[in-house]
C-alpha cells in the first residue's frame, strides 16, 4: 500500500465533521514519508510474460517490441537511472558509477577513473548540464535502427543532428576529408588528386556501388574473403596510402589494418549509401545523448504499450518449477515465458551459472577516454553543426597504434554539455589495455595541440601581415613568410593548455566480436551468449550482451531480434505493428516537404521520407526492406 494511506484515513475522519470548504482552515500539509522515493512501492502485479532486467538499448527495444505484440512485460533495473551500459549520465552520476565499477559492482566494466581538475573552487560546473554516454554511437542515415525509430514513432521523442565532418589524422596532421560541402562524388574527385589516382578511385567507386548480386563482383569478393582490405585496394585498384586510409578508416570506420575485404567493403558502402538520404551527410547523432536517449525513447514506447517499469530493483531468487521470481522489495511475480538479464545485472544466485556459460567465450576490450573541455571545437565542425568525427588510423600516432582510435566530438549545440564546451568521446579496441590507454592519451594530445594551434592562429595576425599570405592553387591562403615565427606553423607550440572540466577513463568488455559476426550469424564457431541455456533454470533465463565495440548502431536490431526469437520462437512479427498517424490535412503539406536541414542544424525525420531503397538517390541496390546492417548479406558472399 502507498505510504500515505494512514494520512488519508486520519484526515478523512477529521474532515467529516467540518463544514464545506469555505470555512475550512487548511492544516499544515504533512510531510509525506518516502516522497523522495516515489518508486518505493512494491510491485502490485502477480504475473507477467517476460521479465527484463536492465534498461539498456537492446533490452529497451526488446521491451517495446514484446509489449506492442501484446505480451505483458516487467522491465526492471538495479540502478536508479535508465540505460544500463548504454546510459547517458551526469558528472555526479559518473562519479558514483566509477566508484561502483571499481568496487566490482558493475561487472564487465573495470579500471574506471574520473579526474576533475581544480575541484569545485576553480572548476565550476553544474553536473546536470552534462549528458555523457557510456557507450556513444553514430547513426548512419540508412540503417535498420533508424528505420525502426521511424516506423515505431519513437523518433518523435528524439531530435537528430547531422555530422558531415570526418577528419583523418595522417602524417601528423588532420585532413578534413569529408565536409558538409562534400558530395558522394566529391570524395572521389578531390582536385588535388592526380588524374591517374582519380581514375583508379572512380574505378573503385563503380565497383563498390555495383549490385552485390553481380556475378563478377560476387566472385571478386569471395576470392578476397580473407584478403586484408589494404592489400586489396592497393593491388587491385592501385590506390595510394592516403586514399586507402580515407576509404578504410574515415568512410569505413574500420578499426584494424587487417580488416578483411568483404567486411571493409560493406562498411565503405554503408557510408556511401547513407549520403543524400537526408542531405549531404552520412551520419547523425541524437541530441542530449545517444544510446541513453534512444533507450529512454523505447522504454517510453514500451510503457505506452503497457510495460511496467520499476527501477532500483533486483531479482533475488527464481524458482523454475513454480516459475516464480522474487524481488528485493519482497514481491513475487509469476513469469509465464522468460527472464532476460543484462550482463551487468546478473543476480548473485545466477552468477556461477553465468560464469559457466561465458567462461570459454573470447572477450573483447573497449577502452574509452572521455574528456570534457572548455572549447566549442567549432574549428572541426561544419557550420550549423555541433559534432564531428576524428579518426586516427593504425600507425598514425607516436605510439605506433595497431588499432584505430575513433573520436566523436560533440559541443554544447548537441545538448550534451554547456555552450562553449565540448566532449571528446574516444575509444580503442586494442586488447592490451596499457597500450590502449597510451594510444588514447596520444590521440588526446594530438587533438589538443592541433586545436590550440588552429585557434591561436588568429593571434598571429599581430605577427604576420597580409603580404605574408599567398593564395595557393586551391584558393586557400598559405603562410608564405613563416620564418617570422621562427618555425613553421606546424611546429608552433603554444604554451596554453586546454581547460578540462572532467576526464573519464574506463574499460568495458563484451563477448560480441568486433566484426559482429556472432550477432549476424551466431553458430558453433561464432557463439553468442543469447543462445546459451542455463541448464538448472529450465531454460527460462536468457542473458543479453554488453554493447559491442562498433561505433555505429549496426547489430543492435539483430541482437534484439535474436532475443525476441528466443522468447517467441520467431522474429517475423518483430515490431509488426501498424502505428497509424492520423495526420490532419496540414500534415500532408508538411509531408510534401522532404526531410530538410533547418538552419538550426536539426534534422527533420519525416515519416513519409522514402526509406526504401528504390529511392532514386539511393545508391544501394538491395530492393527489399530498408538497410541491411553491414555484413548481413555481404559477409556471406
Amino acid at each position, binding site marked *: 500500500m502507498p505510504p*500515505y*494511506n494512514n*494520512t*488519508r484515513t486520519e*484526515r*478523512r475522519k477529521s*474532515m*467529516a465533521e467540518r*463544514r*464545506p*470548504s*469555505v470555512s*475550512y*482552515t*487548511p492544516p499544515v*500539509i*504533512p510531510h*509525506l514519508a518516502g516522497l523522495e522515493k*516515489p*518508486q518505493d*512501492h512494491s*510491485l502490485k502485479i502477480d504475473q507477467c510474460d517476460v521479465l527484463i532486467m536492465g534498461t539498456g538499448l537492446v533490452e529497451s527495444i526488446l521491451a517495446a517490441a514484446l509489449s506492442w505484440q501484446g505480451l505483458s512485460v516487467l522491465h526492471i533495473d538495479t540502478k536508479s*537511472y*535508465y540505460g544500463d551500459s548504454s546510459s*547517458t549520465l551526469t558528472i555526479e552520476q559518473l562519479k558514483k558509477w566509477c566508484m561502483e565499477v571499481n568496487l566490482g559492482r558493475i561487472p564487465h566494466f573495470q579500471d574506471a577513473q574520473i579526474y576533475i581538475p581544480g575541484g569545485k573552487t576553480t572548476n565550476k560546473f553544474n553536473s546536470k548540464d552534462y*549528458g555523457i554516454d557510456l557507450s556513444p554511437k553514430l547513426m548512419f542515415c540508412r540503417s535498420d535502427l533508424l528505420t525502426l525509430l521511424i516506423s515505431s*514513432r*519513437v523518433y*518523435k*521523442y528524439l*531530435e537528430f543532428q547531422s555530422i558531415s565532418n570526418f577528419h583523418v589524422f595522417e602524417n601528423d596532421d588532420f585532413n578534413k576529408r569529408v565536409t558538409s560541402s562534400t558530395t558522394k562524388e566529391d570524395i572521389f574527385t578531390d582536385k588535388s588528386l592526380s588524374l591517374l589516382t582519380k581514375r583508379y578511385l572512380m574505378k573503385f567507386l563503380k565497383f563498390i556501388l555495383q549490385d552485390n548480386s553481380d556475378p563478377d563482383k560476387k566472385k571478386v569478393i569471395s576470392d578476397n574473403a580473407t584478403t586484408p582490405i589494404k592489400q586489396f585496394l592497393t593491388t587491385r585498384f592501385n590506390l595510394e596510402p592516403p586514399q586507402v586510409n580515407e576509404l578504410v578508416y574515415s568512410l569505413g570506420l574500420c578499426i584494424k589494418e587487417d580488416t578483411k575485404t568483404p567486411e571493409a567493403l560493406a562498411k565503405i558502402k554503408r557510408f556511401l549509401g547513407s549520403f543524400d538520404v537526408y542531405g549531404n551527410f552520412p551520419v547523425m547523432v541524437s541530441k*542530449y545523448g545517444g544510446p541513453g*536517449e534512444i533507450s*529512454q525513447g523505447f*522504454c*517510453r*514506447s514500451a*510503457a*505506452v*504499450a*503497457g510495460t*511496467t*517499469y*520499476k*527501477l532500483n530493483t533486483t531479482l533475488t531468487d527464481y524458482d523454475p518449477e513454480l516459475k516464480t521470481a522474487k524481488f528485493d522489495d519482497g514481491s513475487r511475480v509469476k513469469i509465464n515465458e522468460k527472464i532476460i538479464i543484462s550482463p551487468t545485472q546478473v543476480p548473485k544466485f545466477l552468477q556461477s551459472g553465468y560464469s559457466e556459460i561465458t567462461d570459454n567465450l573470447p572477450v573483447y576490450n573497449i577502452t574509452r577516454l572521455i574528456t570534457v573541455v572548455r572549447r566549442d571545437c567549432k574549428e572541426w565542425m561544419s557550420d550549423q553543426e555541433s559534432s564531428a568525427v576524428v579518426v586516427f588510423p593504425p600507425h598514425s600516432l607516436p605510439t605506433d597504434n595497431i588499432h584505430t582510435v575513433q573520436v566523436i566530438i560533440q559541443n554544447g549545440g548537441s545538448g550534451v554539455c554547456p555552450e562553449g564546451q565540448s566532449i571528446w568521446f574516444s575509444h580503442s579496441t586494442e586488447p592490451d589495455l596499457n597500450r590502449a590507454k597510451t594510444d588514447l592519451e596520444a590521440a588526446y594530445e594530438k587533438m589538443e595541440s592541433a586545436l590550440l594551434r588552429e585557434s591561436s592562429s588568429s593571434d598571429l595576425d599581430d605577427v604576420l601581415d597580409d603580404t605574408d599570405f599567398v593564395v595557393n592553387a586551391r584558393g586557400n591562403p598559405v603562410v608564405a613568410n613563416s620564418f617570422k615565427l621562427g618555425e613553421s606553423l606546424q611546429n608552433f607550440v603554444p604554451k596554453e593548455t586546454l581547460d578540462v572540466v572532467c576526464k573519464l577513463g574506463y574499460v568495458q568488455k563484451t563477448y560480441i566480436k568486433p566484426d559482429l559476426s556472432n550477432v549476424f550469424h551466431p553458430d558453433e564457431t561464432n557463439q553468442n551468449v543469447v543462445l546459451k541455456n542455463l541448464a538448472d533454470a529450465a531454460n527460462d533465463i536468457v542473458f543479453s550482451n554488453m554493447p559491442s565495440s562498433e561505433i555505429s548502431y549496426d547489430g543492435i536490431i539483430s541482437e534484439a531480434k535474436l532475443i525476441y526469437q528466443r522468447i517467441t520462437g520467431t522474429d517475423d512479427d518483430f515490431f509488426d505493428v501498424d*502505428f*497509424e*498517424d*492520423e*495526420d*490532419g490535412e*496540414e*500534415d500532408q503539406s*508538411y509531408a510534401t*516537404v522532404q526531410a530538410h536541414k*533547418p538552419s*538550426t542544424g*536539426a534534422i*527533420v525525420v519525416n*515519416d513519409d521520407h522514402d526509406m526504401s531503397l528504390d529511392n532514386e538517390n539511393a545508391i544501394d541496390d538491395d530492393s527489399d526492406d530498408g538497410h541491411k546492417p553491414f555484413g548481413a548479406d555481404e559477409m556471406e558472399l
Partner: protein
Amino acid sequence: MSFPNPATSVKLVLLGEAAVGKSSLVLRFVSNDFQENKEPTIGAAFLTQKCTIGERTIKYEIWDTAGQERFALLAPMYYRNAQAALVVYDITKPASFIKARHWVKELHEQASKDITIALVGNKFDLVEDDEEDSLRKVSVEEGQNLAEEEGLLFFETSAKTSYNVNEVFIGIGSKIPDSSANQPEAIRENNQGRIDLTSNNASGGSSGSGDCAC
C-alpha cells in the same frame, strides 16, 4: 506551403497520482470526450491539440506519464524542454494533494526554470451539489495557498462535466512567452525541430494505434 497562423508548439507534461483524472482531463481537452470508466493510460506517444488564444495559436504536445512514474522515476526525456506542466490532484483525496506537492518539487528540480505550472484540483463534479456531508477533502484555499507559494496557476476542474477544462489550457497558453518574441534561443530551436517532427492532428492520437482512446 504557408500557414496563416503558425502555431507555437508547447510541450506539456502531466503529473499527479494515479486515478486523479490526468488522462481524462486531457482527453476532455483534446476530444471533448469523457469516458466514465476509462483505462488508466492513454495509449499514445503524446496527444496534440491546438488552442487559439487571441492572435496566437498554441499547439500542445501533451505527454502522459504512461504509468512510468508508478514504480520508477520518469526518464529525463520526460521533463526535457517541457514548457508547461499540469500537476493534477483529486479534490476528494487529500493524499493526492500531498503527492501534488511532491510533483511540484520534482518539477523545480528536473524541469527548466521557466516552465509554466498549473495546479489542477480535479473531480469538481463530485462536490458541485455540496451539502454538509461533502466529499470535498481539499479546500479551495489549500490549493490556492500552494499555488501562491510556488508560483503556480490554479484551477479546479471537472473532466466529467468539462467544467474549467479549457480554461486550464488557455490560462497556461497565455503565460507561455511567444516564440517569436523574447524566448530563449534554446527553446525556440527546440520548437522548430519539434513542429516538423510530430504529427499535427488536432484530434489527438499520434502514436498508439489500437490503444488510442480518441
